[in-house]
C-alpha cells in the first residue's frame, strides 16, 4: 500500500521521520484493531451504565443513594475530589516539567493532558449529578435574571464552579495548541481524502513557519507558567469545600497543600499506569523508555512522601490544637466504623510505595503498574475517609448516623469509568498520542540520548501489522 511505501522510505531516511512515523502512524494505520474494539466495547457498556444510573437518579431523586442525615454527601463528592486530583497530574507533568526544562516529559505529556481533560470532565459531572434539583445547576453561574439574585460568592461551591470551569478550558486549550503541529504532521502523512480534511481542519493550516513557531512557543510557555498555579489554586479550593466548614476533621489549615499533593500523587500514579499500558500496547519502548518509568517512579515516591507528611501533620495538628472534637474525630478515624478507609488509605498509599526506593522496582513496568494501581485505590480510600468520618460523627451525638453506599452510587461510579475511557480510547485511536515534534526537537538539541532502535523500529513493526 502507498502508505507502507511512504513509511518505509521515510524510515529509511532519517530518525526524525522515524519518530513521526511511529507516532503518526498509529492513528493513520491503526495496528491493534481487535484489542481496541474489546476495550472500546467495554467502555461503551460502562458509558451506557452511566446513563442508566443517572436516569434512575434524576427520575427518583437523590434518595436512591445511601446519603442521609448526617452523611448528606456521599461518594459522589469524594469521587469528585478523586477524579479532579487525578486530572491534575496531566497539567503538572506537561506544564511544570516544561518550565523546568525536563525534555523527557515530551514522551508523556500528550496523553497525560488527554487524561486530564476526561478526568476533569468526570469530576465536573459529579457535583451536578448530586444536586437535589440538577435542572437548576445553572443558578450557580452569575447571569442577569428576572429574580435579581446572584450566586453567593463566599461559598466554596461557587469557587469550585469557577475553578473547574477555568481548569477545563485551560486544559483543553493547552492540550490543543500543543497538538496542532502533530496534527499538521498527520495531515501531511494522511493519504485518504477524509483523513486529510479531518486533520487538515484540526491543524488549522499549520505550516511550521519559524515565526509561527516563535509565537507558538511564547503562548505555550506562558500558558504552562499560568497552569501550574492554576492547578494549585483549583485543588486548594476543592479542599476548602471541606475546610471552610466548622466540622471537626475538616476545619484544618493543612487541607489545601494536603489536597494538592494528594492530587499530584494520585495523578502521577494514573499517568504511570497509562504510560505503561500504552508503551506495551504500541511498542513505544523507545519513545517511552525505562528512563521515563524511572523518573515517574521517583515523582510518585516524592509526592507520596509529601502526602504522607500531610497525614502526620494532621495528627500532629489535632493533638497540638488539643481541640476535643478534633481529637475524637481523629481517634475515630483510627478505630471507628470507617477505620477501614483510613488504614486502607495508609496501606495502599504508602506501603507498596516504599519499593520505589529501589531502581529495580521503578524500572520494572509490572511493579510500577501495581504500585500505581495501589496508590489510585489508596487515594480513593483517603477521599472517602476524609468525607465520611467528618460527617457521620460531628458535634451532637444525637445526630450521629452511619452511611452505606447504595448500589446506584456504585453503578454511577463504574459508569464514570465509561465516561472517562470512551473519549480516551477514541483519542489514542485517532490523534497522535505522543508529542512527536517535541521529541524531534529534543533529539535535535541532543538533550536526550535517544535509545537507538534495536533490531526493527516500532515503525516497521507497525507497518508490518498494517
Amino acid at each position: 500500500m502507498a502508505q507502507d511505501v511512504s513509511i518505509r522510505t521515510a524510515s529509511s531516511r532519517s530518525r526524525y521521520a522515524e519518530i513521526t512515523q511511529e507516532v503518526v502512524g498509529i492513528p493513520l494505520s491503526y495496528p491493534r484493531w481487535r484489542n481496541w474494539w474489546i476495550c472500546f466495547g467495554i467502555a461503551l457498556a460502562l458509558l451506557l451504565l452511566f446513563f442508566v444510573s443517572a436516569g434512575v437518579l434524576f427520575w427518583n431523586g437523590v434518595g436512591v443513594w445511601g446519603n442521609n442525615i448526617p452523611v448528606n454527601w456521599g461518594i459522589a463528592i469524594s469521587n469528585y475530589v478523586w477524579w479532579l486530583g487525578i486530572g491534575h497530574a496531566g497539567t503538572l507533568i506537561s506544564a511544570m516539567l516544561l518550565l523546568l526544562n525536563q525534555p523527557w516529559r515530551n514522551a508523556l505529556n500528550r496523553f497525560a493532558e488527554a487524561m486530564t481533560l476526561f478526568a476533569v470532565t468526570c469530576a465536573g459531572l459529579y457535583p451536578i449529578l448530586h444536586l437535589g434539583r440538577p435542572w437548576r445547576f445553572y443558578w450557580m453561574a452569575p447571569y442577569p435574571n428576572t429574580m435579581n439574585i446572584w450566586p453567593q460568592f463566599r461559598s466554596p461551591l461557587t469557587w469550585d464552579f469557577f475553578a473547574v470551569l477555568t481548569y477545563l478550558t485551560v486544559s483543553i486549550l493547552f492540550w490543543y495548541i500543543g497538538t496542532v503541529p502533530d496534527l499538521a504532521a498527520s495531515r501531511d502523512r494522511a493519504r485518504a481524502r477524509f483523513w486529510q480534511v479531518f486533520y487538515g481542519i484540526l491543524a488549522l493550516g499549520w505550516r511550521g513557519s519559524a515565526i509561527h513557531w516563535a509565537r507558538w512557543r511564547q503562548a505555550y510557555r506562558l500558558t504552562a507558567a499560568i497552569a501550574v498555579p492554576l492547578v494549585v489554586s483549583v485543588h486548594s479550593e476543592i479542599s476548602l469545600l471541606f475546610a471552610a466548614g466548622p466540622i471537626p476533621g475538616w476545619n484544618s489549615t493543612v487541607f489545601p497543600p494536603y489536597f494538592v499533593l494528594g492530587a499530584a500523587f494520585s495523578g502521577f500514579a494514573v499517568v504511570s499506569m497509562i504510560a505503561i499500558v500504552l508503551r506495551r500496547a504500541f511498542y513505544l519502548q523507545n519513545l517511552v523508555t525505562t528512563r521515563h518509568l524511572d523518573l515517574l517512579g521517583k515523582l510518585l515516591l516524592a509526592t507520596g512522601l509529601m502526602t504522607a507528611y500531610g497525614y502526620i501533620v494532621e495528627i500532629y495538628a489535632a493533638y497540638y490544637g488539643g481541640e476535643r472534637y478534633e481529637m475524637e474525630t481523629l481517634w475515630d478515624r483510627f478505630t471507628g466504623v470507617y477505620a477501614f478507609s483510613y488504614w486502607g488509605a495508609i496501606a495502599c498509599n504508602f506501603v507498596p510505595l516504599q519499593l520505589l526506593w529501589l531502581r529495580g522496582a521503578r524500572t520494572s513496568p509490572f511493579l510500577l503498574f501495581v504500585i500505581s494501581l495501589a496508590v489510585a485505590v489508596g487515594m480513593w480510600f483517603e477521599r472517602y475517609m476524609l468525607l465520611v468520618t467528618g460527617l457521620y460523627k460531628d458535634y451532637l451525638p444525637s445526630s450521629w448516623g452511619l452511611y452505606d453506599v447504595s448500589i446506584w452510587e456504585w453503578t454511577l461510579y463504574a459508569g464514570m469509568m465509561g465516561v472517562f475511557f470512551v473519549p480516551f480510547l477514541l483519542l489514542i485511536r485517532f490523534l497522535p498520542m505522543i508529542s512527536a515534534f517535541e521529541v524531534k526537537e529534543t533529539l535535535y538539541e541532543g538533550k536526550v540520548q535517544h535509545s537507538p532502535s534495536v533490531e526493527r523500529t516500532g515503525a516497521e513493526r507497525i507497518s508490518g501489522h498494517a
Partner: protein
Amino acid sequence: MRSSGLHTGDADWIRRHLDGKSGHSFWRGLEELSEAPEFKRLLAAEFPSLAQGPMDFARRDVLKCLGASLVLAGLTGCSEDLNYSVPYVEAPENIIPGRPKYYATAVLMGGYAQPILGETHVGRPTKLEGNPDHPACLGATDAFTQAAVLGLYDPDRSRSLRYMGRPAAWAELDAMLVSQAARLDATAGQGFCLLTGATSSPTMGRQLKALTERWPRARWYIHEPAGEEGRFEATRLAFGQRLEQRFHLDRAEVLVCFDDDVLGPGPKQTYHARGWATRRQAAQRGEGGCKIWVAEPTPSLTGVMASWRAIVAPGRISALVAALASQLGVPSGPAHSLAEEERRWIEGAAVALEAHGGRGLVSVGHQHDPAVQALGLLINAKLGNVGATLTFAEPSLLQASDEGATLPDLVRRMEAGEVSSLAVLDCNPAYTAPADLDFAAAMERVETRFHAGLYFDETAALCQWHAPLKHDLETWSDARAADGLATILQPLIGFSFGGRSQHVILENCLGDVFTEDRAVVAETWRAIWGEPFEERWHSALVAGFIPGSAPPEVVPQFPLESAPPVASVSRAEELTVVVRTDPTVWDGRFANIAWLQELPKPLTKVTWDNVILVSPALAEKLKIETGSEVRLEASGRSVTGPAWVMPGQEQRTVTVFLGYGRTMPGRVMEGTGYDAYRIRTSRETWQFGGARLAPTGKKWQLASTQLHFALEGRDMVRFMPSEEASTKRSGAAQAKGKGAQRETIYPVYDYESPSWGMSIDTDLCIGCNACVVACVAENNIPMVGKEQVAKGREMFWLRVDRYYEGPPEDPRTVFQPVPCMHCEKAPCEMGCPVNATTHSPDGLNQQVYNRCIGTRTCLSFCPYKVRRFNWFDLTGNDPPEIQALRNPDVTVRARGVMEKCTYCVQRIRSAEIQAKIEGRAVRDGEIQTACQQACPTSAIAFGDVADSETIVSRRKASPRDYSLLEEVNTWPRTTYLARIEDETPGNGSKRG
C-alpha cells in the same frame, strides 16, 4: 415548587365537581362511575373504603368552602395546574378567605376533653391549639391533641354505613333500629347491651339515663383499655365513695410518686404538666421548692424529672408505701424489710414530706393494689395535703349502669346467650379485650351486632352493622376536661366526611331517627340552664368551656384508721411484666395516625414500632441486645416482639406497650409492632409476675431517630446547682459575658428591634413531644415512613434529643429540644452557593425553598444538623384529604430542596402585618411559635431579643443561659437555660 396542598387538593376536587359529578363522591373519585345505585353498591363491595352513604352533607356548603379556598389558593399563589379560581355563589357572613378563623371546642382522650382552639381556613381545620382561657390547659396541648386533626382527615376512616360488610343506606339501619326499639319496649330492654368507651359527656349521661329508664333490663357497659379504674377503687376503699382524685401540682413542693407517671402521657398530662411547671418556675425564682421523688420499675417522664429516682420492682411498691406510712406514723400493718437504698429513699422522702406538710403530695400508680393506693391517700390525709395539693370530686367520667358492668361480665353473659342485641359505640373490644376473654367467640352468640366507630375496625368486622362515627372535630357533643369543667364540642369543619355522632346513634337506638346532634346536646344544657338559654349557649361556645360546671368538690371522711394490710408480692425467680400504654399511639386508637407513628417515643426514640423493655443486666444474662426478637411468656400466653435494652429499667422487670400489632386494614398502621393485649388478662391488667423471656434468635429492624444516647462527656446539656442558678445577674453583666465569648474578625451586624430569638429551658422540658407534633402540623412537614427513618431521613424540624449520663443501670436522663439555632454567624449561609439561605434583618436564618438547588452544603456545614432534605418527592402523592389539611401559609416543599425550622416565620409576618395595619408595634408574646404554644411546661420562650424587657430577653439574661456548642462560635439565637441540680438531702449523688 408545589402549591400549598389545599390548592392542588381543592383543584382536582372542584375540577371533578364542575365536571358535573355529584358532590358526595369527591373524596374518592367515584365520579367515573355510573350513578346507578346497584352499580355503586357492587363497586363499593369491591372497594369498601370508596363507598359513600347517600348525600352526607349539603353540596352547597362544600362549594362555599371550596370556592373560597380556591380564591385563597389563587392569591397566595397557586401551582401552574390551578389556573382558574372559583368564587362563592353566596358568600357566608363570617368567613374571610385568606384569614383563619378560630373556634373553641375540644377533642376527647380517654373520655376527658382536651380543650382546644381550632384554626380553620375557609372551613378546613388545619391546626389545633390549646384553649388559652381554659384553666386546665392554659393554651397548652399534648402530642395526641396536636395530632387529632390528622385523625379527622385520615383517608382510612370509615365513610359508609355497612351491613354485612357491604355498603348500605342509612334508611336500612334506621328501619332496623326502629323495629328493635319497638321489640325492646315490649321486653323492657331484655337482652340489649350497650358497650362504650369511657365518657364524661353530660349529654351521653342524660341519654343513657333515659335509655335505662325506658329499658330497665338493658345494660350499659364501659370498656376503657387504658382507663384508670384503680384510682376510683382506691377512693371507694378509703371512703366508701367513688371519687375523682385531683392533683394540684402547682402547690406541691414535694411530690412523691410510687410508680405513678403523673407527668407522663395521658388525658391529664397537660393539666399536670401545667401545674408542675408553675411550681417549678416559682422554685426557679427561689419561691419554695419543687422536688420529685420517684420509685418505679421502668423509666417514666416523671422519673426523668425526679430529684431522686429509686429503681424498685413493681412488687416492692406496696412495701415502700407501707414503710413510708409507718415512717409518718400512719398505721400500716406489719413492717416490711427494706433494702439500704430503699430505706434511704424512704427516709429522705419522709423528711421532705414532713417538712412540707400541706405542700407535698404522695401518689401511687393506679395499676397498683387499691389498698396500697388507699394507704397513699391516708398518708396525704395525715400530712394535711388533702384539700391543698389533693382534692376530691364527683367523677367526671360516667359510671356504667352498675358495679358489675365490666367487660368480663359482658362476655360471660354473651357466652351464656343472655345478650340478644349488642351495640358497640366508639369502642374496640375485639382488639383491646384482655386475652383471657374470647370476645370474638362470644360475639357469635349475639343475634344483632351493631358497631359505630371512626374506623371499620376489628370489632366492626365482627358485627353485622357498622356505622361510621363523626370525628370529634365534626360533631356536636360535650365533655369534661381534667379539671372537671365541661366543654361543648362544636364542628370545626365546614363539611362532613359522613357518619353520625354518638348522640345521634344513641337516639337512633332509642328509635328516634330524625334527630341531629346539635339538638341533642342543646337539650341537655337547656335542661340544666333553663332560660335564657341562647346567651349562655353562645358564650359557652365562644369561651370553649362552661365556668363553674365542674362537679362539686367532695371533702371525704376517713372512716378507716389503717388500710388493709398489703402483702408485697415478688417472685424472686421469674420476671415481672408491667404493661404500659404507648406514649405515641396510646391504646391503639391512634395507630393509623402517621404523625404519631413516626413520632419518636420520648425515652426510646423508636418510631413505627413498640418494643419490649429489658434491663441491661437482664439483656446481658439472656445474651440479647436492642432489636433482637424475644418471646415473652406468662401464664400460658405469649407475645413476640423486639427487645430494647433500657437504661434505668429495674433488673427483673419487663415492660410491654399496648397499641400495636393491629389486624384492621390501615395503610399507616400496617405491619407495625406487636400486640401486647395478647398477654394481658382481665385479672392482672397492668402488671403480673411469673413471666419468662427468651430470645428467638431473629432480629427486628427498628427505626430509631437517635442512635447515640450517651452525652460522651460533652456539655450539650448543662447543669447548675440551684444556689448559683438563683443568684441574679444583671442583664448588662450578662451581655458583657456574652461579648467575651463572641469573637469575630468580621464587622458585627447590629440588629435593630424587632430581632427574634428563642430560649429553651431544659429545666422545664419533660420531653412530652407536644412541640414536635405541633411543628409538624404547623409547617406541613411530611412523614417519610419506617424505612426512611431507619435510613436517617426523618423530616422533623424540631427534635427532642435525649441523653444519658452515668451508669446504664441507673443513669441520669435529660431532654433537649433542638430546633434551628438561627446562628448569626451561620456556617450554612456561608456554604450556600445560590443565596438560598441568608440572614434576615430581623435575625432569622431564612431558607428559601424555591431558590434552593439542593447542594446540601448547608447541612454539611451545620454543627447542629437541624436541616432536613427532601430526598424524594414526599408530598406529591398525598391524597386530597391530606392536602386539604395543609397550612396554606406555608409552602409545601418539592423534591430536592433543603428545609428547616423557620421560627414559624409565617406567624411572625402575619402578626407584623396585623400590627402595622393597626398602627402599633408587635407586642411581646403576640407571636408564638407552634412549639412554644403547644408546650405544656412553657419551656420555650420566643420574642424580640433586641428589647431587653421581653420575656425571652429576661430569660437570656439568666445565669443559666448558654449556647449550644459555644466553642463553634456560631452565635446562636436559640439558647438554652441550664437544668437546675437539686441538692437532695440523704442522697449522695446529685441529680438534675
